[in-house]
């Protein structure tokens, strides 16, 4: 299924935002030198701490923000700095996005049908009855049936899971080849999550879609993601196949994440994770995780670690990755 050319490729991507502080405007870099490549039919799971730049990275792919440095290739074309309605339109026909909050991503005053049909008309050029049929078809595809009833509903009449399905249908209406799914299940009930993930998985096979799947939940990243990329403070900490990272995490941060996910903590066993928020400001030095890392040394505070292979298809950005594995 996979071709040689990745569908989406980012090389050394940097995104900067100005932040007004008391000392004047400073810049933060929530995405700092990130590279990855995803084929169609493949899922890259982005995991990382809250505020580590996952959404910013995802939004850069659909060009909601413009990278300050680095390059993004989509289907072989450099889209890093495309501008204007037409070119952005072309990009966004290829890459769509599903948002986290199913309550905020649908317009409260428009019906499900209105959400979808305008897109189908615009992107598939259908009119009249064909338009209606295609819209109904779309709802069936995402498992909203009976479609002829669903099409008339307004967002406040739908449950969270149903809304998220509408949001997915809206992304599909454009017939994209790639979807950035920004925490699509984190605001849903545990029992609905599996269904939505299964839906995304089926769509992947059916339409040969590629995904960047943003999540903070390792279990779902393992279930849905072929490969995983762990971000911390805007930098890639570790990347590799999901199974391998879960089985043998090489970076101390990944291990902290893993142990917090599965390890039993309760009111009585406290892990002192409460340190200052990671520094995102430009000009920081060393490894961003150093101040919380149990194995950090002097070099960690001084030099920024580069990604080094720690196995086939598995790399970690840690000065002590080799030692870390054995600990």
């Amino acid at each position, binding site marked *: 299924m996979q071709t040689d050319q990745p569908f989406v490729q980012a090389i050394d991507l940097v995104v900067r935002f100005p932040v007004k502080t008391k000392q004047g405007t400073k810049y933060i870099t929530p995405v700092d030198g990130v590279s990855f490549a995803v084929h169609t039919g493949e899922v890259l799971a982005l995991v990382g701490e809250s505020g580590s730049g996952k959404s910013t990275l995802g939004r850069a792919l659909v060009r909601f923000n413009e990278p300050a440095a680095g390059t993004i290739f989509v289907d072989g074309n450099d889209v890093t700095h495309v501008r204007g309605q037409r070119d952005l339109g072309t990009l966004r026909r290829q890459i769509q996005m599903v948002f986290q909050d199913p309550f905020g991503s*649908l317009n409260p005053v428009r019906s499900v049908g*209105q959400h979808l049909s*305008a897109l189908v008309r615009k*992107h598939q050029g259908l009119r009249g009855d064909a338009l209606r049929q295609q819209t109904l078809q779309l709802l069936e595809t995402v498992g909203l049936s009976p479609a002829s009833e669903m099409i008339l509903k307004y967002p406040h009449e739908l449950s969270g899971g149903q809304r998220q399905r509408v949001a997915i249908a809206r992304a599909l209406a454009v017939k994209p080849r790639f979807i950035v799914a920004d925490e699509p299940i984190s605001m849903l009930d545990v029992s609905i999550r599996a269904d939505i993930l299964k839906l995304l998985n089926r769509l992947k096979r059916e339409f040969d879609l590629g995904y960047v799947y943003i999540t903070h939940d390792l279990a779902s990243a393992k279930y849905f993601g072929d490969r995983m990329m762990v971000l911390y403070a805007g930098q890639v900490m570790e990347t590799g196949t999901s199974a391998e990272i879960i089985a043998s995490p090489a970076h101390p941060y990944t291990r902290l994440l893993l142990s917090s996910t599965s390890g039993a903590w309760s009111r009585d066993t406290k892990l002192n994770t409460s340190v200052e928020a990671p520094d995102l400001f430009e000009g920081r030095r060393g490894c961003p995780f150093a101040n919380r890392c149990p194995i950090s040394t002097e070099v960690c505070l001084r030099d920024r670690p580069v990604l080094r292979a720690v196995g086939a298809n598995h790399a970690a950005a840690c000065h002590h990755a080799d030692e870390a594995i054995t600990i």
Partner: protein
Amino acid sequence: MSRQDANTMEPQSPPDARSRAPKPQWLQAIRQVFKEPKAVIGFAILGIFVIIAIFAPYLARFDPMNEGALPPLTPPNKTYWFGTTGYGDDVYSQWIYATRTSICIGLEVAVIATSLSVILGVYAGFKGGKVDAVVNWVTQVMLVLPGYPLIIMISSYIPNAGSQAIVWILGLTSWPAAARMKRAQAMTFRTRDFILAARLGGFSDFRTVCTEVLPNMVSLVFNTFISMISWGIFGEAFLRFLGIGSTRTPSWGNMLNASQNGNAMMEGAWWWFIPPGLSITMVILALTLINYGIDEVSNPRLKKPPKLSKAIRDKLRLQAAEEGAV
């Protein structure tokens, strides 16, 4: 499926055969407005004036401006229902036509001012950046300029300003406050997810504003429209009363102006100025009531809970009695 399971989860329960297409929210909102007593009274009063305005030629009994053909200052009687003016015109007929003029002017001013405030306020607020900066600057400048003196000044440069000129003067000067309000609201939409999604769909900003933002601001736009009607009617009357513009058009303002000049007050000719004066008050009152009504429906904080039907109240009471609760 029905509304109350809005939050329930999937998989779906089987379709309910009885379920019909839900009404769009705005339709429901309009229905609710018509259930609001204040709004109903407002609409009723306004309706009467609008009917008078539409059927003016059939309702009038004399030429409104026949210049002295009738006996001056006759008190109301069978022939001259509202009496005659000091210049020998039938007050009733003049009032009928004046209603038409004033209502028309009100509507025209409202159309101009509302459109401007929507275009400038919503679009700029949504768009942000340089467009917004420029529009906002113009709005601020217009806001600090003193309203009435400015209008009076402009008007006095236009000799014999007809209704059209007055409409434009009022329309072009009254949008800033409304635009600023809309800008503030439109700005809050800029970063909402459903707006981002529309942009992802490849729709232009203009289209996004029309289909995604404006439908969320219907009540605000409608509010503006209603207040601008009253502003137009009042402004016109005020300018005419000051004697600005042509005095040959029948209008409430001109009637007041004429009665003032004709010493109606001294002569005790109350029938000359009461009809236009009362009309202005009534129309503005009606519009204000309508606006309150809209507010009550659109502003959740003012919303009253819907009434429980008697059957349900009884059922609840029964239940409570059974459970021995208070």
